[in-house]
């Protein structure tokens, strides 16, 4: 069986699994990393959103064989360590705004939010208010309808990292 090596939450991992298995299942079913959630397996719901080399992506849409040994995959479990804290400021904002309801979508929401803020900032665009067009680009489903508190939390955290 093919072996695949990549960096997961700061440490190298090697797995024996067929190359076409999507990374989401390698994380969840092989490595037991369950923060990224399944909501569609189609790149639609964004519940699985994690980071690769600092950018948001859907591991349900990436065959594990496409990863290089140097690729750094960060799941919600590894997010705080990227800022050297117990909680990333985005997670803290989520707590401060009591965003989560059932919580199923929230790891993906937080990972998307962090990347969206970085992307907007790199484009010279500050997220300062709630009707910013940036929100139209966040595709994550929240079936509990927490969208409004998500907006408030993102605005609150945008300047904190």
């Amino acid at each position, binding site marked *: 069986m093919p072996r695949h090596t990549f960096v997961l939450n700061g440490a190298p991992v090697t797995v024996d699994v067929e190359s076409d298995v999507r990374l989401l*299942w390698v994380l*969840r079913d092989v490595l037991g990393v369950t923060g990224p959630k399944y909501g569609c397996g189609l790149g639609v719901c964004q519940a699985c959103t994690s980071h690769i080399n600092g950018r948001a992506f859907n591991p*349900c849409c990436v065959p594990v064989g496409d990863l290089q040994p140097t690729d750094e995959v960060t799941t919600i479990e590894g997010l705080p360590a990227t800022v050297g804290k117990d909680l990333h400021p985005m997670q803290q904002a989520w707590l401060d705004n009591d965003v989560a309801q059932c919580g199923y979508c929230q790891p993906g929401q937080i990972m998307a939010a962090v990347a969206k803020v970085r992307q907007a900032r790199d484009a010279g665009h500050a997220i300062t208010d709630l009707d910013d067009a940036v929100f139209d680009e966040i595709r994550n*489903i929240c079936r509990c309808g927490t969208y409004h508190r998500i907006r408030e939390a993102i605005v609150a955290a945008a300047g904190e990292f």
Partner: protein
Amino acid sequence: MAATGDQEHGLGRRTFLGYVLAASTLTVAAQLGEAAGAPSRASAAVPSPPEPAELYDLNDLLTDATLPTANLISIQVHSDGTASFALPRAEVGQGVTTSSAMLIAEELDLPLDRIRVSLADARPELLFNQLTGGSNTTISTYTPIRVAAAVARGRLLEAAADQLNAPVAQLTTEAGVVHGPGGATVGYGELAEKAASLTTVGVPVTLKAPSRFTVIGTPRGRIDALEAVTGRKQFAMDVTVPDALPAMVCRPPTVNGTVRSVANLAAVRAMPGITDVVTVSSGVAVRGRTFGQCIDAVRALEVAWGPGTEEGASEADVLAELHRAELPLVVPPLPLLTKAVDLRFTFHFASNSALEPNCAVADVRADRAEIWAALKSPIVAQETIAADLGLPASAVTVHVTQGGGSFGRKLFFDAAREAAEVSRAMGRPVRLMWHRTDDFRQGRTHPMSISRVRATYSLGQVLSCEQRHTSVGTDFSHGVGEVITALAAKLPVGNLGFSETIFELTQQTPYAFGVTTQLLAEVDRGFNTGSMRNIYSPNVRCAQELVVDALAEGMGEDPYRFRRRFLKDDRARAVLDEAATTGSWGRSMPAGTAQGIALHPEYHGFVAVLAEIDCRPQTTGRQIPDAYTGPRVTKVVCAVDVGLAVNPRGLEAQMMGGIMDGIAVALSSGLHLEDGHFLEGSWDDYFYTRQWNTPPELRIIVMPPTTGEPGGAGELAVAGAMAAVACAYGRATGTVPTTFPLNHGGPLGFEPLPTVPPVPASPTDGLSRAY
């Protein structure tokens, strides 16, 4: 705030009976349901369930119900100074673990972060008291949880009196510590064992007066928030059960189709990672090392399918049948000078799919079974699965896990039952999950319905209002919440009779509209149905509120003032006034945009919603890839009175979620039925509210306590929001909307996925879309 032992026994307050249970650490209990105030009713009649013989051995249950400890919920105080409580309810996002912890914190004088609330396994002795539905958790547990906590505090005070050598009257409690004379203190943890009892004893208690509440009624964050934001919160698919490998079912191309034969079983069994392939009642089940490999196996199966239960059916067929079944109106032809509003509305099928799809872990052995799933009716699940497996219920353990949303789905246990069947057929544990596409196409739906409303008016008065709601039948086989069951118990409960009873008990007209009748007719079909964040109300009340707007227009009155004039209840008028004032009702707005206002009473509560909508072409034509944009709700103001909000912050969250649902069912989220199957198969087909549909402005006002008793919250806002959005749309466009969701008749906003194979392959281009 400190409270003395003495002040607890205020004059004239109700005394409740709680228990100290025999245990090595302080364990207290109270009866669930209204029985806490009437302890002698432990053996009172069991409420009549729908067709009980199908699901229960009623004699067994009657025996259980008479045990002295039946119906008890219990709290333990531990030597580390914490308290724990296993809530016999499901937590699916509605915040009941947090509000339950707040009740304990209040009566026990223990900080919230020292209270752990878990979800109880199925407890058959609780009968209908372990069903999470009808938004009634807080209503039914408000008193019992407080009674138990008050008993605990009383016992701790007695133990402290002994230890500190001081009378109870000189002791106070604060934040988990008992204070005595001269600055002496002793922590609850130190007292936990001393306060325990060798025998079970009944203890009368009175509860804290609301004027002394310091926790109840204050805004608190959820107790599971940290777990949620760190990814540590465990849902059913995150539970570790040895050897429970992923499993998925290859499902038929039409609703409830059946397997005739499978051409390539051996070849699929030999696919990478696959361990088992078996035919089960719902399709062909595969088990493998990863869900990805299960998806590949499901796609590879060559199955000859037999017909389903709705073979060839289309929406037009269902609609025609609904029209045929509609009950006649009774108000006779109109006298001269009387005018009428007569409108008929169509509500299409909608999906109650949560973000977490149907899923369950099952480990079935020859003589026992163990199930893990988010279940709102765990006892019915346990009894049914036991019957399926030919095991006694006592051999089936059902663990209730945290749920990733419910909206009606988790009242049922389709995945748990299927997982048990698959595990037995394979002889191994399975972690079974439905593919998203299956969850939309074969999962339960909120039934299609029509509602005709005719109201007559003359000389400034509304003389009559008749509503005939006709719906594809709603499946209630999970049983119903104790509030409704208790009321329904006195009535005959055949199957149709039962639905009518529920309809009668849950639907109300909040306006004084003369002769008012509301009747339900159902047609039996082969669809998998269920409630969806409420059973009938969003559709029934949306229809009514649109008719109210039409009446106001016909009578030349302002929609807000018209409602105000005809409302029967002062609490209703107060929320309406609050929404209208805060939302600046009547402000001038550009053409193509408008406000709508609506009121909804339910679950001992009232909600008023003011919505502003923008239907101008530059807004409806917004381009977002693979999205439905359409009319945009730009602002929502919601005022809510639930009698007493235990956690106003949690109540606001429930209103916010309900508003997002209301917007979706009004504007965009429906299922298209064609040739025996539903077309929607992904979240980019089924247009639930997304960020781009979210109102930029949202205000939620929680009214101060009115009745002092908590009402339900989980479902209240959906009907109010749906109606307000529909009314706003009608006023913005000058056309009363009569088909819901509004986009249903338009061109399909997506390319339907194929039905064979039943699930799509996962894309492989994820890296190119990273941002």
